């Protein structure tokens, strides 16, 4: 009776599904999923005498994140790594918020243009993203450096004769992070503004909503999905940023990314590096899960409404 006509679908054998996905899944399994498991193992291993590690169970690497071991083995609280974790989270949050604040007016302005101008402006927004990351971060060294563009300009204007270097500060890192990741915020925000029905904005005005009220009560809430998407795209890579802290933070004020890199490089403390990697990964996962749960709740609300 109720038989659906059999369509000549492209992969007829269900095996094709498996075959097509096999290479991608195999690569991810071998190069990421299993190795992440090994990272977890290493984070509970003993540091080898010449770098590397031995599979001897210990929780020392995690303790090392919080404590210093004294001469007689007593644990002494040392916040040095905790400060790095806190700095990473705060700078990433600040970057995300600044990117949000900068993106909205620009994306909104672009969306009001004619199609050709819109295309050109979106092209201009994405263009720096194609330019090598290291070159873009490096350019800020020339600008913020000791004898850099900003210092020169201020001196020429006679405002500040002996300004110290702006480099190697948290501010420099923040500027670099915002600069690096802002295209990732503008694009999804722009996409959500484009979807916005202009009739809603006009309706709000017809009902005597002021510009500000319309912005706050109509436009911004409707753009929230784009902003949430952009926030993920900016926040997650910020947490793992390496170039910005190394080049603009000068290696002294570290973030988790270059702290991990240091442990696998010059410091030769693989278990500690692995432990910090696990902490970083957990932070990212918690954030993504939280966003996922929020999205699901919203879906649920919309479905029941």
């Amino acid at each position, binding site marked *: 009776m109720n038989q659906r006509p059999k369509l000549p679908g*492209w*992969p007829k054998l269900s095996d094709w*599904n498996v075959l*097509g996905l096999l*290479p991608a899944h195999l690569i991810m399994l071998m190069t*990421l999923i299993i190795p992440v498991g*090994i990272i977890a193992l290493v984070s509970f291993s003993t540091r080898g005498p010449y770098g590397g590690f031995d599979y001897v169970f210990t929780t020392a690497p995690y303790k090392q994140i919080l404590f210093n071991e004294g001469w007689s083995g007593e644990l002494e609280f040392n916040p040095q790594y905790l400060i790095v974790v806190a700095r990473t989270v705060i700078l990433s949050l600040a970057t995300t918020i600044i990117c949000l604040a900068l993106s909205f007016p620009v994306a909104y302005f672009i969306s009001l243009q004619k199609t050709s101008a819109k295309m050109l402006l979106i092209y201009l927004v*994405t263009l720096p993203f194609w330019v090598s990351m290291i070159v873009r971060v490096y350019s800020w060294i*020339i600008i913020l*450096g000791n004898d850099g563009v900003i210092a020169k300009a201020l001196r020429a204007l006679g405002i500040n004769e002996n300004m110290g270097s702006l480099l190697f500060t948290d501010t420099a890192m923040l500027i670099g992070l915002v600069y690096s990741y802002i295209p990732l915020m503008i694009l999804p925000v722009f996409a959500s503004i484009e979807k916005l029905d202009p009739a809603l904005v006009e309706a709000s005005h017809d009902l005597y909503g002021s510009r500000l009220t319309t912005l706050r009560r109509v436009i911004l809430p409707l753009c929230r999905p784009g902003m949430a998407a952009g926030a993920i795209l900016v926040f997650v890579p910020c947490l793992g940023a390496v170039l910005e802290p190394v080049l603009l933070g000068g290696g002294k004020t570290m973030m988790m990314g270059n702290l991990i890199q240091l442990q696998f490089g010059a410091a030769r403390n693989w278990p500690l590096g692995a432990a910090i990697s696990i902490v970083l990964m957990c932070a990212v996962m918690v954030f993504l899960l939280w966003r996922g749960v929020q999205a699901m709740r919203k879906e649920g609300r919309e479905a029941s409404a």
Partner: protein
Amino acid sequence: MTSNVRRYPGFGLFSLIFFVYLYLPIAVVVFYSFNANRIVSNWGGFSLHWYTTALSNAALVGAVKTSLFVATIATVLSTIVALMAALVLVRGRNVRFRRVSETVVNLPLLLPEIVVAVAVLILFSEVGLTNGLLKLTIAHTTFCIPFAFLPIRARLQGMDADLEEAARDLYASAWVAFRRVTLPLILPGVFAGAMLAFVISMDDFITSNLLNSGGATTLPVYIFSLIKQGVSPQLNAISTLIMIVSVVLATVAFLLQRRQ
């Protein structure tokens, strides 16, 4: 009047300032690359001297060759793998665990890159792989897959499945239907994905730097070593050359996507 209420005063000026902020750093690098003076921030007249020294720098040329080699192989491999995965995930019938499968394909995007780098570093040290080029190629192929995958998937989703089915109704084999109907239609997406993968591979610093023990130095890692030695006009010239190549690639990719 209808468009008036949608405009917000000040957004235009704000956007103008924003675009200046976006392009000023790039302009500064390009400007100082023509500086004849050895000290970057002291203008000593126009010169192309640093471009000639950059192009005759053997270490730089070597790094460019390494990067091109790795990026080319990683692009080809990741695009093929991503195309296969996208065909199954978008077109396949009765795909089990579709959501999880897609998450696995996009895994490199969900992990911070430094974690990906540490993962492959530990993997290669456990396996005992020492060939620098091989290590780089494997690692780059892995993290390029989602970048190749997403544009291809978008293109496939935007394409009408009826066309394939019509071809099949007319007795085209699955392979012929794919090669003569599906592939030509999704080709812009495949190109965009390949281009993105190529640029991501050429641009990668974090993973390449952490793996940089097998003697294979990529371009960003070499540039990093130059930056560590200090700001120099030659560095600006190299950066400018890279930017020119990037702009050309970006423009091609943009025009391709516009055709969609």
